[in-house]
């Protein structure tokens, strides 16, 4: 994956686009859906709460009316007399006993009067003990309620307080009648008024108010249902709320529907209003499907745009890559033509600039190289047929020895030695060897000039192991003998060498920085007539061309500069006491230099 990405600009672009697009689409879509749902949910919740409030108020008004009726009944003298005083008459012979007919009618008319407002919503019974004496319900069957259990027990425990309870006789998981009971009378037996609000009554009261998809549940405080309406009929929501409360969680935890619970005053009853989720899963699915679709469209668009973009951006890069390849293959004429003014355009012109400069530099390098070669060829030509000369000299030496002419033998042996050095293909020699060559040369010249000069060499042993270009001292000594000591009988030539920036521990020269480069100074001093002004000027001239007339000296300077750079070379001075000091400046090194490195960048580029 990583390398798949790393090797293609197009893919990188695609992935970045895709990431940005997906983040935007998904988070944006999600936010939109969430925001929309939240808003909708809040609006609906507000409506639900209003509806819930309305329904609660409706039930409360019924309960209030019942309470009013209870208060009316409690204050009614006739009913009190019937339930407390007339106990004997009524209970012994069910309602239609002899002589109590009028009494019954009076009682009923009082009862009906007090319960006018609520009678169509509930049945009203008057209980003496556990048996029902009077009832407004049309059913004929005598109903009894347990005295020591359930609602009558609770009412008798709390006389004067209204008890709201479910009818144990019809209790089911679906619901039960709501009994509203108060113990009002204390005759020989306790008398109770019982308002029975059946499930049907509650349904009649509310069904027109509860929305078609909503549900309503009326429960006691232990969430035992009295009535379950509409969507709540399956009992699932009630069971869930009960479970949540027993687990001490939010009562809405895990609920699919919205559940609103209201306490109905101090009756201990609870009303639960249930509304379905604002957006069902289908709607939410559709929303997410749209987001998904957008994401797919986004992916397609992204790949299109990415390929376009990458073509636009990567085409110049491809051109650059090709051009670089060309340059690497040595074609320095490579030029990039881009008709753009942006960074790519600037990069292209920068590239072109770079290649043209590189080419100039290369040409310069080649030129330098050619010059070095020409010089070398010139030297080779100067050493024309050295083998023949060497062999001849050898012959001369042996002939001279056999004829006892020692000068000739010395001459020819020294010359042969010089010649051998010249013939060798080595370009660098130890300073020791170079000095030996100078000595040989001087031996010859001494014979020629009749011992009119002497040579002294003062070089410390460690400097003898320095490596220097071949044949750089001989031309200088030759110049001194031929031009400086001409016509002098006691000429003196002294060769000295010393090192600068030299430390024993630092053994190498080529890796150290410019300023710390150890330098080898070699001076050739003579006590001759002194170097001419013209020569001095020529030597100080950096242009090697002007020295061509004086081949030897010119070669020395040129070779040193070509090998080691412009910082090194040859200087001459004419001290006040006379004579000439030729001063060679060379890098101090004891290792044979890598000849290839000396030719500089041109060579490396071509490799």
């Amino acid at each position, binding site marked *: 994956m990583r390398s798949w990405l790393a090797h293609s600009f197009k893919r990188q672009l695609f992935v970045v686009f895709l990431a940005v697009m997906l983040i935007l689409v998904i*988070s944006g879509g999600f*936010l939109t859906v969430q925001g929309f749902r939240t808003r909708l949910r809040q609006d609906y*919740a507000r409506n639900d709460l209003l509806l819930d409030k309305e329904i609660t108020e409706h039930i409360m008004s019924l309960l209030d009316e019942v309470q009013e009726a209870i208060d009316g009944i409690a204050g009614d003298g006739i009913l009190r007399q019937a339930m407390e005083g007339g106990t004997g008459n009524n209970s012994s012979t069910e309602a239609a006993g002899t002589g109590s007919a009028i009494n019954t009618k009076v009682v009923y008319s009082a009862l009906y009067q007090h319960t006018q407002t609520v009678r169509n919503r509930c049945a009203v019974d008057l209980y003496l003990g556990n048996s029902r004496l009077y009832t407004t319900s049309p059913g004929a069957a005598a109903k009894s309620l*347990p005295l020591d259990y*359930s609602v009558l027990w609770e009412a008798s425990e709390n006389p004067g307080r209204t008890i709201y309870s479910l009818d144990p006789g019809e209790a089911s998981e679906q619901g039960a009648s709501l009994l509203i009971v108060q113990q009002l009378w204390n005759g020989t037996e306790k008398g109770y008024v019982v308002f029975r609000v059946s499930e049907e009554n509650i349904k009649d009261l509310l069904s027109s108010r509860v929305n078609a998809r909503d549900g309503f549940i009326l429960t006691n405080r*232990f969430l035992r249902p009295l009535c379950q309406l509409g969507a709540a009929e399956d009992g699932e929501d009630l069971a869930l709320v009960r479970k*949540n409360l027993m687990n001490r969680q939010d009562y*809405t935890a895990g609920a699919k529907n919205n559940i609103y619970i209201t306490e109905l005053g101090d009756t201990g009853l609870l009303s639960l209003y249930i509304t379905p989720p604002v957006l069902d899963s289908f709607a939410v699915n559709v929303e997410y499907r749209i987001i998904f679709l957008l994401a797919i469209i986004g992916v397609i668009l992204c790949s299109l745009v990415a390929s376009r973009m990458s073509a636009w951006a990567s085409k110049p890069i491809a051109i650059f890559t090709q051009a670089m390849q060309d340059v690497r293959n040595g074609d320095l004429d490579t030029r990039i033509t881009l008709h753009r003014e942006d960074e790519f355009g600037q990069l292209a012109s920068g590239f072109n600039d770079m290649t043209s400069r590189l080419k100039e530099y290369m040409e310069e390098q080649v030129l330098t190289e050619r010059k070095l070669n020409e010089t070398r060829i010139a030297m080779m030509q100067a050493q024309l047929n050295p083998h023949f000369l060497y062999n001849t000299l050898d012959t001369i030496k042996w002939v001279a020895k056999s004829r006892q002419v020692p000068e000739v033998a010395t001459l020819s042996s020294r010359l042969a030695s010089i010649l051998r050095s010249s013939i060798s293909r080595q370009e660098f020699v130890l300073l020791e060897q170079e000095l030996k060559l100078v000595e040989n040369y001087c031996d010859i010249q001494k014979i020629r000039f009749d011992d009119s000069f002497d040579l002294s060499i003062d070089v410390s042993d460690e400097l003898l192991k320095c490596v220097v270009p071949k044949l750089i001292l001989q031309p200088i000594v030759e110049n001194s003998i031929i031009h400086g000591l001409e016509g002098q009988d006691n000429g003196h030539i002294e060769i000295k060498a010393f090192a600068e920036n030299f430390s024993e521990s630092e053994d190498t020269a080529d890796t150290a920085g410019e300023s710390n480069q150890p330098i080898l100074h070699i001076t050739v001093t003579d006590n001759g007539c002194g170097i001419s002004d013209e020569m001095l000027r020529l030597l100080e001239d950096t242009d090697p061309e002007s020295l061509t007339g004086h081949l030897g000296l010119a070669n020395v300077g040129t070779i040193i500069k070509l090998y080691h750079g412009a910082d090194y070379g040859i200087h001459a001075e004419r001290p006040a006491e006379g004579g000439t000091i030729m001063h060679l400046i060379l890098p101090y090194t004891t290792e044979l230099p890598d000849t290839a490195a000396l030719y500089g960048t041109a060579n490396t580029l071509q490799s």
Partner: protein
Amino acid sequence: MLHKRILKTAKAFLLPVLCCILLCACDDPGRRKEIDEFSARYGVPSDSQLIVYTSHKEEVYLPIISEFENRTGIWVEVHAGGTIEMLSEIRQNAESGDNCCDIMFGGGIEAYAANKGLFVPFAADEKEHIAEEFCSSEDLWTPFTELPIVFIYNNKLVSQEDAPKGWADLFDNRWKGLISFADPTNSGSSYTILNTMLLASGQTPEEFIPRFIEQLDIKTEHSSGDVIPSVSNGKYLVGITLEETALKYMDENSDISMIYPAEGTSAVPDGCAIVSGAPHRANAEKFINFITGMETQRYAIEQFHRRTVRNDIDTSLLYTDIPLIEYDIAQAGNDAEKILSLWKKTVDRMEEP
């Protein structure tokens, strides 16, 4: 490098997005507060909870449990089902170490005797008033009500004279295939009936069971609740069921009559016991004291036509004493598995063509 950068960008992007989503997802704070307040006020602390497994019918357990809730303020979680189903659930819970049941309520006490390992002993506060013959010697269970076994017959199809008077009469040829009887492998009360008949017959199970199944013509009802309706609708002529079930039905319908078997019958009580490892032990004890208390026992007599297990209630006006046969509950409990497997085998054998 690229990955890191993308990750960084993604983080920078996602954080505010997530914050927005969280903000949006929040409900109206007013509503939130209301939910929190209600949940806090009505949330039921663990010491006010009780979990009851019951095999009673809804009309029996609901009034009792609702009254228990009202009087004690303890919230009761009810799991209802058949006796065998409930007991096996309790066993599974016990095996998985899941203590999620306090009380087993309902089911004949032989079932309790057969599952002694599931319960812990507890003696009801008013144990001295409870008829001793029904109590567990180790107080592992407490009886709730006495349930005599009776015959019923469809009085529109069978005359009083013809109706079977005793256990032996049931084997009369005229009732062959016409006796409504619930499958004892499914119904606890049906097993009690089978065992009672076995004791009354004086035969060994191997003799009696094939004979009885033969007489049933291998037909059984699925549950004990189906026995009376199937007699009422004429599918069968006679049925064997519990007194309370018959009386309750007869309260509202007149086509069924009831007979106490002449040889005597059994009146095995249904029980109630605290399940071992009960998480709400104290409340479970309260519950047992409540159902054996005077009020609940009276209520059971009046409302459910059940016979009380208390000996300090004068029942002479409420129901007549009936002849009872000797019924060894412990033996009934122990033999249950053997007898039921014999039953199953016999049925399977006879059903083969």
